[in-house]
């Protein structure tokens, strides 16, 4: 992958000022996503996964704001541009798929109206051409009899079909980047499999860069090319999906993977990570994971962990789990 990444996030910090001090839901996070690649972002609730996605697409709710770092879309900075300019980019260059397909569609407009509105806003086409494109978009995401259903309202569709409409909406202006925030969490297993297969196909055929936020390790394993693991607003580990799941360097990643019932098939008890993720207002010193980590030493409690590089990935840990190909890097 020598080409420039579609999305490049550098040292991103998001802060929320509160009465009790400043919270950092996203703390110095950096990653790239290339064309045709799916980057999975995993972590527990409150780890900053969705906040990172919202920061990229410019949908942070005030008072949350970006205070440091940069976000580059195809090399152009987008973290400091005006709201109007960002509005033009959103939809055109970036598409968003949310968790709940019912709340992300307008219940008072037909899906055809919603699709053509987006197409007319971003592409220079006539009304009838926009309608044809809307039908094509619905066909592409696998909605049967798209020409007849274009006049239907969102409530006339099932959950899986609605999520397909949302995907069509995110893709109809041909964006380069799609941010999918828990796109299958509200869906049943069989529908989830359909939606994941659809995302993979679109990513491959169109060369869209996808940021897939989810907490389901199975979905990540099957869909993502690389995975970023977040903990308490920080990037704990980032690497190729197979490496991260089977040969995690960071003790948190290893614990997270081992605690899924899938990983401990046959075992009488599930492996568990003791304790719970700290609240943002009360983050421990040094490595945020040290109170729950069985490898923690004095340096973990004192200073933030250094960055460890291994073949195609990296982890932030003082005492990474020994796997082959590990080389110790400079402190970050």
């Amino acid at each position, binding site marked *: 992958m020598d080409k420039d990444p579609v999305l490049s996030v550098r040292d991103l910090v998001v802060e929320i000022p509160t009465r009790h001090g400043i919270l950092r839901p996203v703390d110095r996070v950096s990653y790239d996503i290339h064309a045709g690649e799916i980057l999975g972002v995993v972590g527990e609730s409150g780890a900053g996964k969705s906040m990172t996605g919202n920061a990229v697409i410019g949908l942070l709710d005030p008072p949350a704001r970006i205070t440091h770092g940069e976000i580059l879309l195809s090399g152009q900075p987008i973290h400091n541009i005006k709201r109007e300019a960002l509005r033009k980019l959103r939809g055109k260059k970036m598409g968003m798929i949310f968790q709940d397909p019912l709340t992300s569609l307008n219940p008072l407009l037909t899906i055809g109206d919603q699709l053509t509105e987006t197409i007319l806003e971003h592409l220079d086409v006539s009304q009838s051409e926009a309608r044809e494109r809307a039908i094509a978009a619905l066909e592409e995401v696998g909605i049967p009899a798209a020409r007849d259903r274009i006049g239907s309202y969102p409530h006339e569709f099932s959950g*899986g079909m609605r999520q397909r409409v949302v995907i069509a909406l995110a893709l109809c202006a041909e964006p380069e980047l799609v941010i999918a925030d828990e796109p299958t969490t509200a869906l*049943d297993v*069989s529908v989830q499999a359909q939606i994941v297969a659809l995302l993979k196909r679109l990513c491959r055929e169109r060369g869209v860069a996808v940021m897939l936020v989810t907490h389901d390790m*199975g979905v990540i394993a099957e869909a993502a090319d690389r995975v970023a693991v977040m903990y308490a607003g920080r990037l704990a580990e980032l690497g190729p999906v*197979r490496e991260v799941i089977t040969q995690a360097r960071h003790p948190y990643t290893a614990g997270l993977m081992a*605690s*899924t019932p899938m990983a401990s098939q046959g075992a*009488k008890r*599930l492996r568990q990570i003791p304790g*719970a993720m700290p609240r943002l207002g009360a983050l421990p010193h040094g490595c945020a994971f040290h109170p729950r980590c069985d490898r923690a030493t004095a340096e973990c409690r004192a200073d933030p962990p250094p960055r460890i590089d291994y073949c195609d990935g990296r982890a932030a840990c003082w005492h990474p789990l020994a796997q082959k190909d590990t080389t110790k890097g400079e402190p970050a």
Partner: protein
Amino acid sequence: MSALISIKNLTRVFDVSKPWLNRVLERRDKAYLTAVSDVSFDVEDKTVYALVGESGSGKSTIGKIVVGLLPASDGNVEIDGVDLATETDPAKVAEVRAEVQMIFQDPYASLNPRWRVREIINEPVAARGGKTEGLAEKLLEQVGLSAQDAGKFPHEFSGGQRQRICIARALASNPRIIVCDEPTSALDVSVQSQVLNLMSDLQEEMGLTYLFISHDLTVVHHMADVIGVLYLGRLVEEAPRDRLFSDPKHPYTQMLFDAAPRMDGFGREVDPPKGEIPDPINPPSGCAFHPRCPLAVDRCKKERPEMRKIGDTRVACHLAE
């Protein structure tokens, strides 16, 4: 061995008709939704019986009927030989009611935010006039919280801790059966593993029987002894855990297993299942799964398959062997 919970030909129909005036003006008939249709199974003492299925398969409805939160339309549920719907001896009814408790999916909605944890846990016992001195404190320690937490309110706890409080409340009346309706689907993976381990420990220590309702096959695989697979309100297959996972007989069970994401499925290209769950108000004729079934023949459209026993497995499919 006689079963602790015995469910026979259980059916539950909901009236989902529009209001009378709309029916008259729009010339519509009454509409009925059959959430559970002719389901029979037994749960043995001190085992975990899991019901799996997608949304609308009727798994939660069965759970609610078992604890007595919903009446059955037809068929019956016997717990320890007592049918709550027909039993006339009030002492027996009270005894069985105390023996069956429930844990709900959403630990944020199932605890009264204005009550202290002590009152929440003591209530099932206090309501029957039992002694509650020190009960909440003892139970909190048993589920991995501290006795001091009894004076706090639910909002002071995280999701996983709240689910522990729900478990403590369910244990308060010393039950034999706990119906767990998706107890961990609102929790993060690392918290989920803590709660599932707690539930396994308690089952072993106290000799509990769980009716475990979940849509997550991996959780079910970990917890259950026997698994029943539901589709559109019908029990399509039932088998001991290892038998079901190694040799699923019903095409729906096979489809569900294929579709479930796997952690070792790197870059796996699944052939995603076709179609969606049909409308339960107008279910397909014959076998409810036939419109999506790759093996369906003419007979499947006409005749609803009976439960047949093949080895350890019970399966409702004309073609399974």
